């Protein structure tokens, strides 16, 4: 359509061009002048700005270059069963990458009743012709062009931003089915771009759905099917700069589109970190964390997002909302940050955030403790919380999850290691009398200066010993955390073999943790049976965070759906029942995943009608025309 001036090669990442240098360039206004600096297939290039909003934008801003369009994570990383029937994890990005996992197949087949003979492969490529044709608001488009903000209405770009990672979303993609998808994707480059975009959206009555990392598991990114206006996905990925670091106050001012792993890496270069590590941190964005009230694995040291944030700038239809100072704590009425945090894209777009930073920890140590049963483990975690000596992270897996973790053990390299493993197992099960079908494992992560860590470690192990816990080594601990990052990849493997599943979470007072875990697992099993699932499901849980007054509990739930006509529907009903059980047992609607559209059904009973009214009145003032029309939350 258009002839392009050949892009001027600026230098590639591989050539060692430092992010900071590029940032410097950007800061000096490259992108607002004649040229735009961006990346094509990992290469950094500069192109004339007048082209950027046209056909080029598709290549320019496509994450799908490195990520799967119908599954989790990087395209090069996936589990598969090789010709020998052994499980393998491909790629080179993770500790498990390139390894063979000899016990996974047996675990997989015996847990789910699945078989490698029965495959349910996904549609290989995205069929653009099956994607609904975009309904564009021409006036809006015309004005947008004049701002120079890049956009695209290519099917691939739109599909990629039409979903999060709920089971039903991924399942539909694998089948090549597309519902309502955004009509347009825009890539604002800075706060001002967002102000312009929102302004235009208001002027032309266009629906905006902010898009950060796309890791939502609450249907928050789903487009309302009955939305008749043009839906624009506002992708914040280009706003990913650290604008300044304040070493005196230990804060950093960061654009909200930055992805977790980039933020940590860039801060690490200056010797700092935020310490905020949600399980999705490889892909999720700072703005997304703020908008969903995210929680990080190491919150015991660094705090959750609400503890980390010092200042937020958000663009709303009514204008820009922010505080006028960076005081560490204020008493100036209800905290407006709490309207923003958890607003899930219904009020505006978070563009810039000032976040606390910490010097990088000197020393890190993993650890693990085996308990004779889950009850003892929970009692130990409760005691640790009571004494307020929780390590950076402490998590307790139930027996099923412990076995799951074991199935992910890579092939042992020497006879000696396998002998040692055997010895360990003998010691725990025979000598100490732990029942392998009841024992469970807590994984630990300590951080700080070396001496303190060692001292802290001793304190925690001493408490554990009072509850019958035995130290079980660093390796088990580390493997536990690794599971977190690969579990989402494992779901894709399951879906290749008729197994579907998902995780969900809650928070609950200490005295109800055990009852809630037992009842929810049992409810899942019962619901599956009653709904005709032919094989017993996997229903397992772990306690992932401890607080003074309670804990966060995380469930994994999966089943083999062979023989079911509408597995996703059944899956949804079982998950719905499980959530009802959680609420009936004193659990919360969500600890950190958010409400989205998946759970908004329970909002009135969760926060009372008056509470709903409060939120509604804020929405009505801030966004009277429902420009941010994702319809999450309310």
């Amino acid at each position, binding site marked *: 359509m258009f002839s392009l001036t050949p892009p001027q090669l600026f230098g590639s990442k591989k050539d060692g061009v430092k992010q900071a240098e590029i940032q410097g360039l950007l800061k000096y206004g490259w992108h607002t002048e004649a040229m735009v600096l961006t990346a094509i297939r990992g290469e950094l290039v500069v192109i004339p700005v007048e082209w950027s909003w046209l056909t080029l934008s598709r290549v320019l801003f496509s994450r799908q270059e490195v990520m799967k369009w119908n599954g989790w994570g990087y395209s090069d990383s996936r589990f598969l069963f090789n010709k020998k029937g052994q499980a393998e994890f491909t790629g080179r990005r993770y500790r498990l990458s390139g390894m063979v996992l000899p016990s996974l197949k047996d675990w997989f087949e015996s847990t789910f009743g699945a078989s490698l003979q029965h495959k349910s492969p996904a549609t290989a490529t995205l069929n653009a012709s099956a994607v609904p044709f975009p309904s564009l608001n021409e006036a809006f488009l015309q004005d947008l062009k004049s701002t120079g903000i890049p956009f695209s209405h290519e099917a691939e770009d739109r599909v990629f931003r039409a979903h999060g990672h709920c089971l039903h979303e991924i399942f539909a993609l694998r089948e090549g089915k597309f519902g309502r998808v955004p009509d347009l994707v825009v890539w604002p480059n800075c706060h001002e771009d967002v102000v312009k975009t929102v302004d235009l959206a208001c002027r032309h009555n266009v629906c905006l759905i902010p898009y950060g990392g796309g890791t939502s598991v609450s249907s928050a990114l789903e487009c309302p099917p009955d939305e008749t206006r043009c839906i624009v996905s506002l992708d914040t990925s280009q706003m990913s700069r650290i604008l300044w670091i304040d070493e005196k106050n230990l804060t950093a001012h960061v654009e909200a589109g930055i992805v977790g792993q980039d933020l940590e890496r860039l801060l690490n270069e200056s010797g700092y970190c935020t310490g905020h590590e949600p399980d999705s941190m490889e892909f999720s964005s700072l703005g997304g964390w703020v908008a969903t009230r995210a929680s990080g694995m190491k919150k015991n040291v660094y705090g959750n997002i609400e503890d980390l944030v010092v200042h937020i700038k958000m663009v709303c239809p009514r204008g820009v909302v922010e505080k006028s100072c960076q005081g560490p704590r204020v008493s100036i009425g209800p905290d407006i940050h709490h309207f923003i945090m958890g607003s899930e894209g219904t009020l505006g777009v978070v563009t810039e955030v000032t976040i606390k930073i910490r010097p990088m920890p000197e020393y890190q140590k993993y650890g693990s403790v085996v308990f004779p049963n889950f009850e003892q483990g929970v009692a130990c975690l409760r005691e640790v919380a009571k004494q307020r000596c929780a390590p950076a992270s402490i998590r307790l897996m139930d027996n099923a999850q412990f076995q799951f973790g074991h199935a992910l053990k890579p092939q042992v390299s020497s006879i000696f290691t396998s002998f040692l493993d055997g010895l360990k197992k003998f010691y725990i099960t025979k000598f100490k009398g732990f029942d392998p079908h009841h024992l469970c494992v807590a994984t630990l992560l300590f951080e700080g200066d070396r001496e303190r860590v060692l001292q802290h470690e001793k304190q925690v192990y001493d408490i554990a010993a009072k509850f019958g816990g035995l130290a079980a080594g660093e390796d088990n601990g580390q493997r536990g955390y690794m599971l977190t990052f690969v579990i989402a990849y494992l779901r894709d493997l399951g879906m290749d073999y008729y197994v579907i599943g998902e995780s969900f979470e809650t928070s609950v007072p200490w*005295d*109800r943790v055990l*009852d*809630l875990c*037992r*009842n929810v697992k*049992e*409810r899942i099993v019962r619901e599956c049976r009653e709904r005709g699932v032919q094989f017993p499901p996997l229903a397992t849980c772990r306690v992932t965070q401890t607080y003074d007054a309670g804990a966060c509990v995380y469930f994994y739930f999966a089943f083999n759906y062979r023989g079911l006509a509408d597995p996703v529907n059944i899956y949804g009903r079982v998950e719905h029942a499980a959530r009802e059980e959680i*609420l*009936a*047992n*004193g659990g919360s609607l969500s600890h950190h995943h958010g409400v989205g559209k998946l759970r908004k059904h329970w909002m009135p*009973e969760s926060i009372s009608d008056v509470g709903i009214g409060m939120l509604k009145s804020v929405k009505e003032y801030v966004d009277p025309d429902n420009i941010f029309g994702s319809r999450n939350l309310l």
Partner: protein
Amino acid sequence: MASNTLYSPRDPALKKRDDFEDILEERRSSSDLRYALRCYVPVVYKGIAPCKPGVLKTAVLQSDRLRHVVAEMSKETGESADVIREEASGILEEMAHRLRLGTVRFFAYSLSKAFKALFQRVRVNEDGIQRLQQSIQEHPVVLLPSHRSYMDFLIMSYILYTYDLSLPVIAAGMDFLGMKIVGEMLRMSGAFFIRRSFGGDKLYWAVFSEYVKTMLRNGYAPIEFFLEGTRSRTCKSLTPKLGLLNIVMEPFFKGEVFDVSLVPISISYERVLEEALYARELLGVPKPKESTSGLLKARKILSEDYGSIHVYFGHPVSLRSLAQGRINRSQYNLLPRHIPRRPSQETQAFVNETAYRLVRLQEENMVLRPWVLVAALLLQNPDGVDMERLVEQTSWLRGLAVSFGAFLDWPDYVSASKAVASSLALHTGLVRTEGGRAQLAMEPKEPGSPEEDLFDRAASVLSCASYRNQILHVFLRPALLGMAMQMAEASRKDDIYSCFSFLRDVFSNEFILCPGGTVQDFDEACYMLTKCAAVHVQKQEVVATEKGQRILSFLTSLFQPFLKGYQVGPAPFLELVDYPRELTCYEALSSDVQKNALAALLRMKVVRKLKV
């Protein structure tokens, strides 16, 4: 697996029921001693090893609930917490069971001997046993037998022992502890003892409820208690008491257990051991105090034939399924669970309704002998009836009862004349057959004072009535409709409904009529009577058919004694002097009827209680 279908009001006659096996048969052919000493390894709840009674007591005394109540009472009364705790420990000591296998084996041996002497057969539905076994492994189980006799809980434990099921812990009245040795032996076979009334005693309530809940929560053993609260002296079910049912439901409401299986059990006796005693009790002779010597004196009953016992284990009812959509469990989220609080109105209504449903389930699976039909007919013919006519009527009544869903133990190959004859033979004390006529035995053997004669006559009428009562639940709803039609004196459906509703209200202390179920009961009654072509139900009208006259007049006269009893109220005695042959009025002498009538009048605010 527990089912959530309680009963279907539509077509009760189609209800499918299990077959019975006689468990005494094997006892008659093999060694009782070996049976008592055999290896006994019951299945348990989710593989949990039952803890020792001592551990259980400690758990109760150290529970949050009890600690909370002790601290509160100490604050209120100024008494030191230690003293109160000591008191609690004393209560628990008095209450708790001490299950010992040795004692169980002793009972297994001696009961085998006793049962073989007393009964022809003890018949059990084995399918029900299998369902129970399944339930015990899945969820905590609550056994809810009907209560007609002291034998009930002995029989229950005996059957569970026979089938290698966990022995239940049984809530028993404190009266049994009055029996030396025997009381303690019952304790060692799993009974725990509760005071009959402890209204305001907070500590007692806390110890008691925590004790029961602790056993339920950790699946220690099935918990057994009688919904009716006490033995029914009249052989018709008593309206349920809710205290214990509330307690066993609470752990589910509070999420402490996933579910609770409620198992209704119907124990039907061909002849109740306490038959003669009951009639006297109803006429005002006080209940003999439970005592060991009394028990030994009662040995003479061993020489009599008490026919068969049928024990029907109903389908376990899942409390979770019942509560689905009725109880919002999150109402318990905002208060620590050990702090006691009054159940909400919706909860109370739910517990009440469930209790009624469970008693109805017990009623439905009560096995009825042909004699019950004969007794009902004899009571309607005080002057006696020709054998031929009696056989014909019994046969007719059989058809009607079966079509209304009665669980009749009357195999097809037994002819009506045979069934009537053998019924009369087993109950010679109550009927006289002379010259081809059968008549209630009313005339005293040796004439005494008029009062004594009257007493004897009333006693035999009440004994006979206790058999007829067994079948009332089958006819209750259609009969109420029949009576309502008579009362309304018009065929407008609305009028009949309001009469029906009134009668139902009046009799709700007398029969098992769940509050709030009027519409459903009315529909059920219409359906049943339409089915046997006794009435035509149209949009606006309910009309009796030609053929229906016989059915309707039978039904109304079946319930006549109660109507009469409620009408005459406090003055039946006078009437009896004038009309000594008016049979229905003898029943008005029953203290049970009087008590219920008074309760109904109080409830309906017709009379008021004044403290004297």
